[in-house]
């Protein structure tokens, strides 16, 4: 082999090595999700429920070499803890956050404080429904991963409906007819567990979704610009008038304010009462009260008008967000990519009794998902009202006011005035 040939071979070998190295470098970023075996380290994760998340961890840990340290706590308590941790700089890498501005630790409040990582460029971002934008986007950037969606629905005892010979209603008039038939059959038509004040939100938001978001789509823009108020909103007035008419006309359990949420669901499970209005996340608990499980339980969207096409349902996502100061940011992003797989996204939602939030998630065949599919497709959904509101004080004023109206200490005008006062206090 001549000297020149040796030089040529060396040059070719060097070029080939360089090319291979460059190719490896070039594919490095893109392959973070495909071959993230080199990530390693520890990922700290805090969320509100183990269900759905824990089964997804072993695969992620073995694929990436990342050890996931989890904290699970009830959503409210977790939010309070996270606010303190974020202030102290000790928050986990990845954590659960509420939509909008419902609490100090909700997504948009954290964005304002510069606490969240911009997730706009992530591979799953294109599958986030545009309807969620007001709850998780700021300045056109996306800051949260929607783990699943929750809808507020009317759950009914199938045996009670059979006994009364009624079908799920699609209009307000039909609903009243169904309630009358149930009452005549000796079944308590509606079970309200308003001793737990947060439960007052569910039927209220279910009615307001159609009467406010559906029929007054500009209400919140006009409220923000000072052009209207809760007291001036026909939708809000009708929402409360219809809610209280259900109690005043004797369609509910005798003592809604003395009944906590769980016994209210239990009454529907046993057939003592027929209908309870709850978020889909309560479905696993509710099903547990029904002897026949899902076979004994039905679901429908609560109608608020006499036109079925005007029915909207409250539908809000639950979020995971990445700490802007995450110690293992790459692992946090890899984990979100891992759970955004269509089957995994579906698996997680199903375990939560919820609805997959990503558009490309594998559909789930159960009564909850089937009942809301058409509303999602027609975009007849609105976020839970408190997720649109600028602070938690407004929901607190509404919950206390609803209880006071039922007690007879206040009327609808007073309740709406309280909500306007709370809104004014928050917005300064």
């Amino acid at each position, binding site marked *: 082999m001549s000297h020149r040939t040796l030089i040529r071979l060396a040059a070719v070998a060097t070029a080939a090595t360089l090319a291979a190295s460059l190719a490896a470098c070039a594919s490095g970023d893109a392959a973070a999700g495909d071959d993230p075996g080199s990530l390693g380290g520890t990922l700290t994760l805090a969320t509100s429920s183990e269900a759905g998340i824990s089964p997804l961890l072993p695969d992620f840990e073995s694929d990436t070499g990342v050890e996931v340290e989890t904290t699970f706590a009830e959503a409210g308590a977790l939010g309070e803890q996270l606010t303190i941790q974020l*202030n102290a700089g000790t928050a986990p890498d990845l954590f659960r956050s509420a939509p909008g501005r419902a609490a*100090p630790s909700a997504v948009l409040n954290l964005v304002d404080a510069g606490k969240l990582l911009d997730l706009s460029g992530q591979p799953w971002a294109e599958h986030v429904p545009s309807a969620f934008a007001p709850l998780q986007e700021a300045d056109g950037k996306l800051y949260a991963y929607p783990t699943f969606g929750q809808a507020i629905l009317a759950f009914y005892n199938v045996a009670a409906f059979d006994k009364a010979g009624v079908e799920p209603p699609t209009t307000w008039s039909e609903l009243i007819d169904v309630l009358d038939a149930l009452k005549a059959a000796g079944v308590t038509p509606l079970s309200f567990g308003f001793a737990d004040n947060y439960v007052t939100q569910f039927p209220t938001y279910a009615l307001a979704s159609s009467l406010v978001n559906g029929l007054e789509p500009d209400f919140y823009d006009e409220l923000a610009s000072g052009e209207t108020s809760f007291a001036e909103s026909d939708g809000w007035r009708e929402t409360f008038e219809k809610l209280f008419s259900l109690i005043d006309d004797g369609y509910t359990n005798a003592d809604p304010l003395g009944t906590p949420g769980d016994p209210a669901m239990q009454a529907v499970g046993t057939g003592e009462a027929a209908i309870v209005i709850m978020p889909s996340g309560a479905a696993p608990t509710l099903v547990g009260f029904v002897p026949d499980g899902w076979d004994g339980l039905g679901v429908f969207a609560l109608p608020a008008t006499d036109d079925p096409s005007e029915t909207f349902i409250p539908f809000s996502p639950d979020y995971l967000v990445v700490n802007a100061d995450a110690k293992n940011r790459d692992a946090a992003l890899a984990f979100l990519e891992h759970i955004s797989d269509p089957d995994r996204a579906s698996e997680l939602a199903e375990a939560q009794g919820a609805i997959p939030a990503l558009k490309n998630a594998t559909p789930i065949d159960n009564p909850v998902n089937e009942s809301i599919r058409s509303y999602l497709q027609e975009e007849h959904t609105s976020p839970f009202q408190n997720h649109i509101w600028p602070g938690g004080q407004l929901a607190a004023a509404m919950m206390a006011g609803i209880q006071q109206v039922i007690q007879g200490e206040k009327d609808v005008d007073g309740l709406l005035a309280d909500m306007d006062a709370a809104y004014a206090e928050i917005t300064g």
Partner: protein
Amino acid sequence: MTAVLSRGRSDAPVRSVPGRPAPRRRPTVAPTWFLLPALVVYALVVLYPSLAGSVLAFTDRSGFDPGEWVGLANFEKLLRDDAARAALTNTVAVAVVITVVQTTLGLLLALALNSAIRARNLMRTLFFAPMMLSPIIVGLLWQYIYTPGGPLDSTLEGLGLGFLTRSWLGSDGALWAIVASIIWHHVGIVMAIYLAGLQSIPPELTEAAQVDGAGAVRRFWYVTRPLLGQSTTIVIALTLTASFKLFDQMFVMTGGGPGVSTQTLSLVMYQQAFVYGEYGYGTAIALVLTMIVAAVVFVQLSITRRGEHQV
């Protein structure tokens, strides 16, 4: 009355030898040093955070906004806040009722179980047992008991007292329904303190009073009650303090509702600071609550200590 009682704290010498003045124990520095580690820990984990945190009451800190100095604005807001004023009224009413009822019941139980009745040890254990439960568990338990058509209503109906059933947690009476559960929870510790006090009273004192012809009521009023003065001081101080900072049961059983009828200052403070992230205002409420408790307990101690007697 043959019993000789001394008032206030005893300054009696430690040991006396007949014919010589009693030697007094020389003050020593050593015990102070033994206290030091605990004092340092207390200062670091209680005093310093409390004092440093109280500065927040004079700022408008909220959420992630460090806030600015606002002077007394949070305290002015507190005076205008209808919910906080209603909570203060509830807090004072609850503290007074719990202190009076719980102290009286605990004393009656102690007197009953200090006698020679059968199964008194079992009864003492049963009355003390609720104290072993956490307030959250007690709240959940009583929330269930008070459910419409629940155990309490069923029992009343079974006893032919159905006319007494009501919306226990769904009406204006909810506050007193919760108070009843709190008294059930804590009366055992009051009973235990009074039992300890009763057992420290030499039986010859009451026997002597009996010989002098004093009946049971007079023996209690003139012998037992004064000698239980220290127990009463402890019981009232503990009960008042616990009642003013009541939170758990209200939080679990009603969340402050219906409306604001079971709100307490502690609950309002928690909601403002941790639910709404209004740290400045929440701390101002906490500071006011602390000052109220300190003032009330100071007055209570100075009154009840005057009535303390020792054997």
